[in-house]
């Protein structure tokens, strides 16, 4: 559930540190269909090209929450999920079929609050052209 070296410690982190990036396979129609069923989000704009076109789009678009699941994963690959206090994302650009997303995470703040040692991370998902698809944060509590 985290690195072989165990949960990272607050004192071992510096503002500006980066986590390993996570690159996911290119988005396919099949991946969106599986996510549609697994997520329970049956909005046809993600799987039905006829509906997407009737809505003025060229094609189906990926679920923002699929992209957000990737950004959450960068954090759960690093610390146990129970350490996560908050996660947020702004969806800045639409993710399309064929986009290959890479998520990056950087320590942007360390603070102690009510005896809790908190680290705030900036999270970004970019496509293969470098376009930022999502930008957000995670707040984690570390030992």
């Amino acid at each position, binding site marked *: 559930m985290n690195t072989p070296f165990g949960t990272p410690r607050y004192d071992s982190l510096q503002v500006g540190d980066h986590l390993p990036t996570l690159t996911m396979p290119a988005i396919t129609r099949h991946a969106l269909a599986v996510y549609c069923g697994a*997520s329970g989000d049956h909005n046809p704009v993600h799987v039905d090209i006829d509906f997407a076109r009737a809505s003025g789009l060229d094609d189906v678009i990926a679920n923002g929450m699929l992209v957000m699941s990737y950004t959450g994963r960068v954090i759960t690959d690093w610390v146990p999920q129970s350490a996560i206090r908050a996660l947020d994302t702004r969806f800045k650009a639409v993710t399309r079929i064929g986009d290959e997303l890479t998520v990056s995470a950087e320590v942007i703040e360390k603070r102690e609050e009510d005896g809790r040692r908190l680290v705030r991370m900036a999270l970004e998902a970019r496509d293969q052209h470098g376009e930022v698809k999502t930008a957000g944060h995670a707040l984690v509590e570390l030992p």
Partner: protein
Amino acid sequence: MNVENRRPVVTAELIGYRTPAFEVEVEKGRLRLFAKATGQTDPVYTDEAVAMAAGYRGLPVPPTFLFCLEMERDDPYDWFHALGIPLGKVLHAEQSFSYLQTACAGDVLRFSGEIIDIHHKKDGALEFIVHRNFVADRSGHAIAEFDRTIVIRHL
């Protein structure tokens, strides 16, 4: 009048509007399917023995899956229909979660939602709605809350 082209669709009077509360049981099969759908390879999300060894009561609910559980109602877009929000014009603008406990497979979670903010940008061409959900277990202990911001685009 063409309902699809009505604008504004929502006004600030709807702040405080409550969406239907409901309860849902977290099913481990769904969590495994979600892991597959999101490319998750960490066995803590699919193997109960690994999850329990890590200190969870069962398979943990991944950070974003609470959003999905909220869509388990008979019609997750019921309040869109009630308020005349045209689904084809809606995009997800922002999403945030704050967590008090990690929910696990087998938990029965109660979701109650409310519109907490409505604002417009670009002379009303973009209408933003912020919908907050409170998540609690059956005993009423808070698990998490999360805010979903959607935008209705009249572009």
